[in-house]
């Protein structure tokens, strides 16, 4: 909402300075976006001083001037004027300026080989006089302290730009803003003075509002103005329209616009001669069409509120008029419309047809239904004043009287909500100034709500009015109480934070990427999940919700590889989506690692990242989070985007149905499809939702501290097993032989090749044996030794390697 202070003062009698008014506006909830001059094309002409003059090397009649243009800036300007001399004060136009005389736009240019930044202007070039000999000479006494300042005084008034919240349609007119300001005490709201011009004769065009279902119009006021001469608007009106950055069109259009901006009272002017007999306000029929003032043809649906005549639709009520009945410069007779349309109906129609107009914006928020007559009076008066013509009586059709709504307001609610007190008389004054009719009954106010405030429907709205006008600075700042109702984080949230920092501590950079992604990449990772399309994506390559964290991670790892990075570790913790319903999402950690370990290192041999790097990271993370490594179970099954032979899934327990994590090399096909160039790409995923809370709390585990001081013994074994026999199973077999004695099992060698049959491999392991009851004797050790060998041989078909 834009207006000038001068305009505001037509409604507000105030002695306050502009800045005080501006501050007040913001303090009462009418946020000032800006308060400045509309920039003018004349702003680029500056007072300047020539500080040095040199002859142009390639042209006798040209000279090169060093020109002081203020703020410690000097520029070089090539000038042909004979009067250009040192210390002359003149007018400088920089590159981009438009010379008033010939509308030429200046740019930095080379004149005979010397670059000139702008030009020094003659009086004639600026339309100041006909003097075209030489550049303007300014008197030192008047201009010597103005170097760098604009030469032309800005004659446009400063414009206030307010951002009006959708609940305040009344402030879409200057009068509403003035009323709010007056309520704060900065001034008085002036009365609207209407010249009591006499209206003659009846309004001859019949108007009716049909009783259709969901009729969008409840009141339609009109008057006829006969014998007008439409013309250009007078200067004052043009200036008003221009000062708000709009374009004057013709007196009649400008006047209706002016009344709309002034009183937030949209009007519509019809060329009365183009109306076929009568005006019927009715619901549209499906398939009806009309050409609107935006020169588009609209095809209507049912139940849209239209203004029509005998021949058909004239316009969409409260949204846009039609070309058939529009006023033109030669229009003689005008029918002026001032109506009330129901916001819901306006919104529905404009959404369906996708039309946005100033009128629609206002009616959608709610226009004062009681302003119909005022709008007609004000506009008709101006039209007859400027364009002549005879004004008819006003014809007002209405199906709803739009009486003021009433609220009972318990005064104590104010303090209950805001925490501070305002005395009753002040409350009554504020509300009265805002246009409420107030009567007090003990601790209660009976209020009649002004019809321009559709936003006020219940007592809390009254609290807001009072505290807003009184000022939010009156609210106390109460020290916060530290009482806690429950733990800050629940178990799952604690786990989230723990895992996040645990993964980062393994050398991964955390990233945050969109929850949506490119469906083409998503297809590579979605497995059997449903694709969830966004109906209105921001761009075609962000068109679906992600089914996997890897979609974006692989995309961005490629971007970083393309930037020249090689060894990258990235992870993200966040949602992936299973379906398009609330809650159908999982919280997943995805981590990815490219390139090599120890690249270009003087004391360690480099190697490509591999499946066991990520296996370490994921297992360590889970162990740090409190899960027992001993009960983990690894399967060689994983989603299809992993390398089928170099990936696996982790179950916190053998009996669990869902794996909590996957790890492995990313499938080479994916690297190929996404054109990812790296020596190696590995990753892991942790599904937080499948990680159950540990049954035994860490604090309870701590209290149970047991250890053995008896001697430990270590024994090495090498078993020859089938090539596809899993190390995990071998460890499981050995450790279950005697959980009390066998303390740890370490695999220290895997061997295939010479001396081993082709379909076999040798697994060498070291077993630590320790009792918690006694020092084991050689015979005990020999016994367990034998047991290990025999058990492994029977259970796995392995052979001890001799």
């Amino acid at each position, binding site marked *: 909402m834009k207006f000038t202070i001068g305009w505001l003062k037509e409604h507000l009698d105030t002695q306050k300075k502009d800045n005080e008014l501006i501050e007040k506006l*913001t303090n*009462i*909830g009418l*946020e000032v976006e800006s308060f400045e001059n509309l920039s003018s094309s004349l702003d680029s002409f500056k007072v300047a001083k020539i500080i040095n003059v040199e002859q142009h090397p390639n042209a006798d009649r040209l000279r090169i001037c060093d020109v002081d243009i203020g703020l410690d800036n000097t520029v070089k300007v090539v000038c042909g004027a004979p009067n250009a001399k040192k210390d002359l004060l003149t007018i400088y136009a920089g590159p981009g300026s438009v010379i008033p005389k010939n509308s030429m736009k200046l740019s930095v240019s080379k004149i005979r080989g010397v670059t000139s930044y702008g030009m020094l202007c003659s009086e004639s070039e600026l339309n100041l006089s006909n003097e075209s000999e030489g550049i303007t000479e300014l008197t030192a006494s008047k201009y010597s302290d103005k170097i760098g300042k604009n030469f032309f005084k800005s004659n446009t008034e400063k414009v206030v730009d307010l951002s009006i*919240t*959708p*609940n305040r349609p009344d402030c879409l007119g200057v009068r509403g803003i003035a009323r709010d300001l007056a309520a704060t005490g900065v001034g008085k709201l002036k009365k609207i003075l209407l010249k009591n011009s006499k209206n003659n004769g009846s309004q001859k065009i019949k108007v009716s509002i049909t009783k259709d279902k969901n009729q969008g119009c409840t009141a339609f006021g009109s008057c006829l103005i006969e014998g007008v001469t439409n013309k250009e608007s007078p200067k004052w009106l043009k200036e008003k329209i221009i000062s708000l950055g709009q374009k004057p069109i013709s007196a009649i259009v400008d006047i209706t616009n002016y009344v709309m901006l002034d009183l937030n009272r949209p009007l519509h002017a019809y060329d009365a001669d183009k109306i076929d007999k009568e005006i019927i306000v009715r619901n549209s029929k499906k398939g009806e069409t009309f050409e609107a003032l935006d020169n588009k043809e609209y095809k209507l649906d049912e139940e849209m509120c239209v203004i029509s005549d005998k021949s058909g639709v004239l316009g969409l009520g409260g949204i846009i008029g039609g070309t058939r009945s529009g006023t033109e410069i030669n229009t003689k007779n005008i029918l002026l419309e001032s109506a009330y349309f129901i916001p819901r109906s306006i*919104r529905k129609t404009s959404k369906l047809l996708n039309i946005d107009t100033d009128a629609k914006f206002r009616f*959608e*928020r709610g226009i004062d239904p009681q302003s119909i007559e005022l709008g007609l009076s004000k506009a008709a008066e101006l039209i007859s004043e400027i364009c002549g013509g005879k004004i008819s009586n006003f014809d007002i059709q209405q199906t709803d009287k739009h009486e003021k709504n009433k609220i009972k307001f318990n005064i104590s609610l104010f303090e209950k909500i*805001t*925490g*501070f007190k305002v005395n009753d008389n002040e409350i009554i004054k504020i509300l009265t100034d805002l246009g409420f009719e107030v009567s007090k009954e003990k601790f209660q106010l009976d209020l009649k709500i002004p019809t321009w405030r559709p936003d006020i429907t219940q007592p*809390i709205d009254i609290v*807001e009015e009072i505290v807003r006008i009184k000022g*939010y*600075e009156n*609210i*106390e*700042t*109460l*020290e*916060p109480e*530290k009482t*806690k*109702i*429950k733990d*800050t984080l629940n178990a799952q*949230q604690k786990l989230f934070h723990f895992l*996040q*920092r645990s993964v*980062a501590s*393994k*050398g*991964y*950079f*955390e*990233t*945050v*990427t969109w*929850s949506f992604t490119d469906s083409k990449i998503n297809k590579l990772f979605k497995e059997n999940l449903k694709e969830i399309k966004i*109906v*209105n994506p*921001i761009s075609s390559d962000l068109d679906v919700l992600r089914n996997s964290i890897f979609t974006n991670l692989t995309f*961005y790892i490629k*971007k*970083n590889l393309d*930037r020249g*990075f090689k060894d*990258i570790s*990235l992870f993200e913790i966040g*949602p992936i*989506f299973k379906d*398009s*319903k*609330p*809650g*159908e999402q999982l919280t997943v950690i995805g981590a990815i690692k490219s390139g090599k370990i120890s690249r270009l*290192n*003087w004391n360690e041999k480099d190697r490509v990242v591999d499946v066991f790097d990520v296996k370490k990271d994921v297992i360590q993370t889970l162990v740090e989070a409190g899960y027992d490594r001993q009960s983990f179970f690894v399967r060689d099954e994983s989603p299809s985007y992993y390398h089928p032979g170099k990936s696996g899934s982790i179950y916190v327990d053998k009996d669990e149905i869902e794996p909590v994590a996957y790890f492995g090399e990313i499938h080479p096909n994916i690297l190929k499809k996404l054109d990812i160039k790296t020596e190696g790409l590995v990753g892991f995923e942790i599904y937080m939702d499948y990680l159950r809370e540990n049954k035994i709390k860490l604090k309870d585990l701590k209290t149970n501290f047991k250890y053995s001081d008896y001697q430990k013994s270590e024994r090495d074994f090498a078993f020859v097993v089938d090539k596809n026999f899993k190390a995990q199973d071998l460890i499981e077999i050995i450790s279950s032989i005697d959980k009390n004695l066998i303390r740890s099992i370490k695999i220290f060698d895997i061997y295939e090749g010479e001396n081993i049959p082709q379909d076999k491999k040798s697994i060498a392991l070291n077993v630590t044996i320790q009792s918690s009851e006694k020092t084991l004797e050689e015979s005990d050790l020999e016994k367990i030794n034998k047991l290990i060998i025999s058990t492994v041989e029977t259970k796995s078909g392995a052979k001890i390697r001799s």
Partner: protein
Amino acid sequence: MSDIKKIKDDYLNKLNNDLNIESLNQIKTELFGKNGKISNYFKKLGSLPTDERKKFASDLNSIKNELQVKIDSKLQEIETKEINSKLENEKVDVTLPEREFIRGKIHPVSQVIDEISSIFSEIGFSVEEGPDIENEHYNFTALNTPDNHPARDMHDTFYLDNNKELLLRTHTSPVQVRTMLNGKPPFKIIAPGRTYRSDSDQTHSPMFHQVEGLHIDKDINMGHLKGCLNYFIKSFFEVDKIKMRFRPSHFPFTEPSAEVDIGYEIKDGKIVIGEGDKWLEILGCGMVHPNVLKNVKLSPDKYQGYAFGIGIDRLGMLKYGINDLRAFFETDYRWLNHFGFDPLDVPSNYRGLSR
């Protein structure tokens, strides 16, 4: 007696020479070996007359000890020398780089969420979360923003179906609704999370983060709201004083509503929070609208309280001098490295929020 004295003197002399470990062992053998000179005297002790024996034994023992001590110290001397000369050959260039280590980073958004959680934890708030996909009821209608409300236009919503029933939440406020529907008052929660609007330019990103706050009890008023936010802003920016301005505004789900500005100035091209005469809008808040309370089956006559919504990314930008919002989500390795935080930097009350 003189014989053993001589042996002693001779060998003490010898031991004063520069010896290596072999020659020292040689001397040891010569003295204390099976046929060593001192050993032989001990063997002879038994054959001496009783009166001489005692004195001789005592002399012999003291000589033996003297020599032994000398030998031991010599041995230590030689060993030290040998270690020293060995160490000299083992010297490495310690200025060579250490073994490689890699250091991970926490994203600034996560760090800021942890900072926020830590601050609100201090004043008794707990953390709630809600789904990223919402239905229009929780995102709008229950929040007093019915279908025909113009405020809906201000949210450029991503929809997941043509009926506009399912959407990506445009703010974290639906968590308020879910929390109040699923629990019993009092409520004292914050809800950080991802939010989405189909808007993209230098200062808008189609995904961003908000934290919702909600405190509902029997007598929570606007003074508590002011106090809570004042505490939060001061703690977050780690300054003693903050200039704060509450401006009336409008949100469908709160009334009265306010926008909060904080004072700042530009010093050396950087934003300094808490001083200066410029205002920066940082959050929206207000008293929860009675219609919202009714929608979650709470009686507005019994319960009241405040809610607020803060842009997390923006807070992070202000605190850590990040200029471009879009960079948060572009996964530039250099950016993550620069603006990321060490995983050990867990914001907490006792260690402080930031280093």
